[in-house]
């Protein structure tokens, strides 16, 4: 009886376990193996060359600039995204007329794929086919066409605008759920004790929203550190290699330089960095609770 029960349990777990094994553990082991080998895309495995692929990372002229840029981008995106999505969540958390419409409106960009959204913005920003410059000039706001992706700062700015537009609604929904889970009586009690709006926000909303905020932070930080599609489509790392992210570097090693070993080595390094970061984040989140 006990044994067969265990067996049933194992059978239930088998599909998921197998899924994880085939689509996570096996590729992970393969990446580890690749990172230790001389492995050109076209020729296949040519044998172990440890630690060449790892030592080559430091010699890669694009690596440290890419790390720096990825961190800078992550910092900017996370601050704006978390702030804005919190603001939006508070705006639409009430039950006033019309909030449903705004919730939907803010959330809509989320339903678009990132690559499609990037292509859409690529069109908007294009000096030859985009509508932005004609509109701005028509309204008399600018005289000259703006080079939306032409300088390093503008390219970064334009990409951040896309990402904020695309993801603010998603994080808003997470925070909205968190906000609505706070019992109204807590605010009631605070108001009776004479707390103002600001005090209520700092001493009630923020502490009780921590789990949701923590989730938003982890998702937005991890997502930004792994940024690829938006830069691949909007800037291709340019102008002048100013917007090359770490994942673009992995892509370049694998599919421009056809060196799977070098790409795998960078992947392993990024994986370890993310692992450490996520453990630290979860720890601090748990401590807070």
């Amino acid at each position, binding site marked *: 009886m006990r044994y067969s*029960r265990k*067996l*049933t349990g194992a*059978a*239930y777990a*088998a*599909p998921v*376990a*197998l*899924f994880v094994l*085939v*689509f996570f553990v096996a590729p992970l082991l393969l990446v580890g193996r690749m990172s230790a080998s001389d492995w*050109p*895309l*076209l*020729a*296949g495995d040519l044998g172990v060359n440890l630690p060449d692929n790892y030592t080559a990372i430091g010699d890669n002229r*694009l690596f440290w600039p890419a790390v720096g840029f990825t961190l800078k981008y992550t910092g900017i995106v996370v601050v704006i995204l978390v702030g804005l999505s919190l603001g939006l969540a508070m705006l639409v958390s009430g039950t006033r007329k019309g909030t449903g419409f705004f919730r939907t409106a803010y959330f809509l960009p989320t339903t678009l794929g990132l690559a499609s959204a990037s292509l859409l913005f*690529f069109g908007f920003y*294009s*000096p*030859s*086919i985009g509508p932005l410059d004609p509109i701005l000039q028509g309204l008399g706001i600018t005289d*000259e*066409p703006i*080079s*939306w*992706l*032409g300088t390093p700062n503008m*390219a970064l700015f334009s990409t951040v605008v896309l990402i904020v537009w695309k993801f603010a609604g998603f994080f808003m929904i997470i925070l909205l759920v968190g906000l609505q889970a706070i019992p109204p009586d807590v605010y009631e009690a605070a108001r009776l004790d004479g707390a103002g709006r600001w005090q209520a926000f700092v001493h009630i909303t923020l502490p009780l929203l921590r789990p949701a905020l923590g989730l938003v932070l982890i998702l937005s930080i991890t997502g930004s550190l792994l940024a690829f599609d938006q830069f691949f489509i909007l*800037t*291709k*790392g*340019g*102008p*002048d*290699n100013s917007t*090359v992210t770490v994942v*673009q*570097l992995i892509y*370049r090693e694998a*599919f*421009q*330089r*056809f060196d*799977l070993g070098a790409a795998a080595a960078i992947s392993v390094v990024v994986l370890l960095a993310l692992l450490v970061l996520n453990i630290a984040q979860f720890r601090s989140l748990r401590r807070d609770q």
Partner: protein
Amino acid sequence: MRFDKRRPARRAAAAVAAGTAAVLLAAACGDGRSGGGGDQEVVLEGVDDGTTLTMWTRAATQAQSQALVDAYNESHENQVELSVIPTDDYQTRVGTAAGNQELPDLFAIDVVLAPKFTTAGAYLDITDRIDSLEFADALAPSHIEVGTVDDRKYLVPHTLDLSVLFYNKDLYEQAGLDPEKPPTTLVEFAEHARAIAELGDDIHGTFFGGNCGGCYLFTWWPSIWAEGAEVMNSDGTESLLDSPEAQEVYSIWRGLVEDGAVAPGHAEEPGATWTGLFPEGNIGVMPMPSTMLGLMPEDLNMGVAPIPGPSGGESTFVGGDSIGISANSEHPNQAWDFLRWSLQEDTQIDILAAGGDVMARTDLADNEYYADNPNAVIMNDLVAIGRTPYSLNFGQTFNDPQGPWLPLVREAVYGDPNADLSALNDAITASLSS
């Protein structure tokens, strides 16, 4: 004991779950295709027996490939299934498929990237088949050369894409230039562009893809060749892109940028939309791919001319796609049937020449369609003198947006006017010879 009562159902559920797992496992393991064309006996004239062939090409040359495939399918038992892959992803897709032995029977390749694939053994050796063609000598010479490794031939020209000057005759007239006299030197080209830019409003002298390595080399290297200089040494391991001739070319374009004769957006143009402006009729004169000729609006009064060097001469970059049979194809004779047919006189004339395209052969320029299309004749004549540069590391050096070519040319056009390009040129050599 609810558990006991529902046990049969649970059992069934568990069985389904385990079954799903087995299917997943089978799907994930896939079927490693092996073998390939080596076992089939070579039939030089090809075999048309109703085989279904798979073929890949990139979006940039889709129009020509599609026309060829449609006509072949209509007149043959064999059927070719064409998959068109976005140009930017093509190398990635083909590279991955080659690594996994999952290539289609036929695949075209941007001719400059071909050496990477021919030397890696992704293509079947078709030397005997090519040599058996009575018109073998007339096949676009630079394509055949790049598709040859150690005297073995792997590729035939498929769709040719040459760089040529396109100029807008109406704008030439408005600017007081002779619409029948396109520029014959690059200096003259710059004068024309400036004169047209003077027209003002939304009219611009010229345009180029300023953040696109592939665009630069395709449109600017012919000027270097026309001047009698080289861009690389003959085995493609050393860069000569800081030569005085090359710098002269960069500086002429730089002057156009500084004088505002280039349409806005050039500095960030990544190569996706750079050919979109000229057909709208606002650009005076610019080098573009010959495949654009068939896509020009009918009411656009335009002409084409060879790309000149700073002091004269003419040349072109013979780009486009070569095509071969993949090494793992199980139907090489059927695949060859398509290739052989695609190069025949009737096919070349009725499909390519009729569409205003450049043909893969140099011996057919005297045909009924070209008689009414002087622009196509100019382009076709360039095939014989044009160049296709050879280097094993071409893609990662010149096309890759993070490669070392883009920094050099951007420094020359947008950077410090007195910059020393030799260090940047050394970086290109390092990439070529790595």
